[in-house]
């Protein structure tokens, strides 16, 4: 490694790795947002038995590109009486942590931007920043809807982050590590060898919390358009809104990526292991999220708190205890460990 570093003129290899990884991730996040917005509209269309975007490009493929150009070209507005610094800091605060949360995600056997021993902790910590950006955006907008959206975002995060943590902890207990790559390696290729088969409750609880984490229906309270116009991003135009949008779709990738790595065997799959399995699983989960969006109505605020505090947290604790007892009393034989 040192020789390679010398050959590169003293640049640490690890730094280069992260830099390349970040560039790759940035490209992926942009491309993915374009693809996912298109997919979202297409899926929405098909659920309503209409074609969705169709005119720009083949099957409307370029529609999101056109929308992106529109967003970039639009003027940036700030409402009167808004807090200038916080107002413009919020979109960046929403968008930038996403890159950190994408760093430890194992796309393939060796395709990881940066191996982090505490990968899960890193992701959870920086995912929490997203709520801060929502809160700031809503508060600094000087708008009642934005403020209500921000209040909802904060209360929502208090509700879903605890069961999410507890459900992930069960997996960490089983594998004994927080490194996502190691967790993937501890699973087998076939679905019954995935951790999701051993921890179905943890997977279910995690996925419900992931929906809340990404502010997607039925937990899209912070931006409930029928009640709060657009919630916390009501006052954002152009790329200010665009960055929130990018962050939301990148967040979908992060939570689905974590679910894939922890519960669905990551890049391992039947017949041939590889990054394609990871992508297939991630996009399948995202499709499920879109499916939920067009099936379930938005829950009321107290309902969300009830679901989280009265059901998910006790269930997650019971699941965690059961896992602990099982490991201690019966012992655990993970397929690949």
């Amino acid at each position, binding site marked *: 490694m040192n020789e390679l570093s010398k050959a590169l003129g003293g640049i640490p290899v690890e730094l280069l790795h992260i830099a390349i990884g970040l560039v790759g991730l940035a490209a992926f996040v942009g491309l993915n947002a374009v693809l996912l917005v298109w997919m979202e509209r297409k*899926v929405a269309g098909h*659920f309503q*038995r*209409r*074609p969705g975007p169709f005119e720009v490009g083949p099957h409307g493929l370029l529609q999101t590109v056109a929308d992106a150009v529109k967003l970039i070209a639009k003027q940036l507005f700030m409402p009167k009486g808004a807090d200038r610094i916080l107002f413009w800091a919020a979109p960046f605060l929403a968008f930038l942590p996403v890159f950190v949360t994408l760093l430890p995600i194992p796309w393939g056997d060796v395709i990881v931007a940066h191996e982090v021993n505490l990968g899960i902790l890193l992701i959870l910590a920086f995912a929490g920043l997203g709520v801060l950006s929502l809160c700031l955006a809503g508060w600094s907008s000087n708008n009642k809807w934005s403020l209500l959206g921000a209040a909802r975002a904060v209360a929502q995060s208090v509700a879903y982050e605890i069961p999410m943590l507890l459900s992930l902890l069960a997996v960490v207990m089983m594998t004994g590590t927080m490194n996502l790559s190691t967790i993937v390696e501890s699973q087998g290729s076939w679905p019954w060898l995935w951790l999701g088969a051993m921890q179905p409750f943890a997977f279910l609880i995690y996925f419900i919390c992931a929906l809340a984490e990404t502010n997607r229906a039925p937990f899209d309270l912070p931006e409930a358009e029928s009640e709060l116009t657009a919630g916390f991003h009501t006052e954002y135009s152009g790329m200010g809104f665009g960055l929130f949008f990018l962050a939301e779709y990148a967040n979908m990738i992060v939570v689905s990526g974590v679910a894939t790595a922890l519960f669905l065997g990551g890049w391992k799959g039947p017949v041939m292991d590889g990054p394609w399995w990871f992508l297939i699983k991630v996009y399948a989960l995202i499709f499920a999220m879109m*499916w*939920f969006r067009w099936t379930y109505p938005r829950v009321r605020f107290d309902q969300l708190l009830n679901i989280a505090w009265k059901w998910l947290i006790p269930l997650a604790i019971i699941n965690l205890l059961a896992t602990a007892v099982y490991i201690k009393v019966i012992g655990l034989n993970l397929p690949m460990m």
Partner: protein
Amino acid sequence: MKERKKLTFWETVKRQWSLVVGLKVTGKNYIKPQITTHYPRQTVDNISTFKGHVQLVGKPKQPDVAKCICCMLCVTSCPSSCIKVVKMKPPKEDPIPEAAAPKDMPDAAQPAKQAPPKAKAPKTPVKWTLDFNLCSLCGTCVEVCPVKSIEYSNDSYLAGYSRKDFEYDLLADLKERAAKMPAPAPKKAPKAVEKETAEQAEA
């Protein structure tokens, strides 16, 4: 807030099945074929059920001549006064006293009614216009027409650059349609009108 029945733990768990049922419903619709049409490339096949602006009905044997007898019932009954009908002037030899016509109808319609029956006045319109900007598609003119000379058109593809584009000369429109029509077609038109009026009467 309304008092709800308290559910037991198992009842609540059992009710979660409704979430799966919901997914089934939406999932089925996802797979089913689309029910919309890609407009410029496809058009709907039941456009005949569309009731657009009114149009004139031609005589069975002379499809380019309107059945209209210039009774002016449509003009007087129209709540938006968007129909204008001008009757063909009688030959000059006929000594029909010219009476002052109302402002709305600067034509020979009113005096014709009062004219002595011996002078056989022509009953064909020379001008029949519809201002679709004002029309509310109430259908009163279609109902009231004694000779069923007015029917709904299927013209749903309307777009224009100014209000003038929606002031229709329906006599010209009838001639245009008659020129395009195959020979037996005009017979169908009055039937359609009868049906429509019957439907309206039922409604």
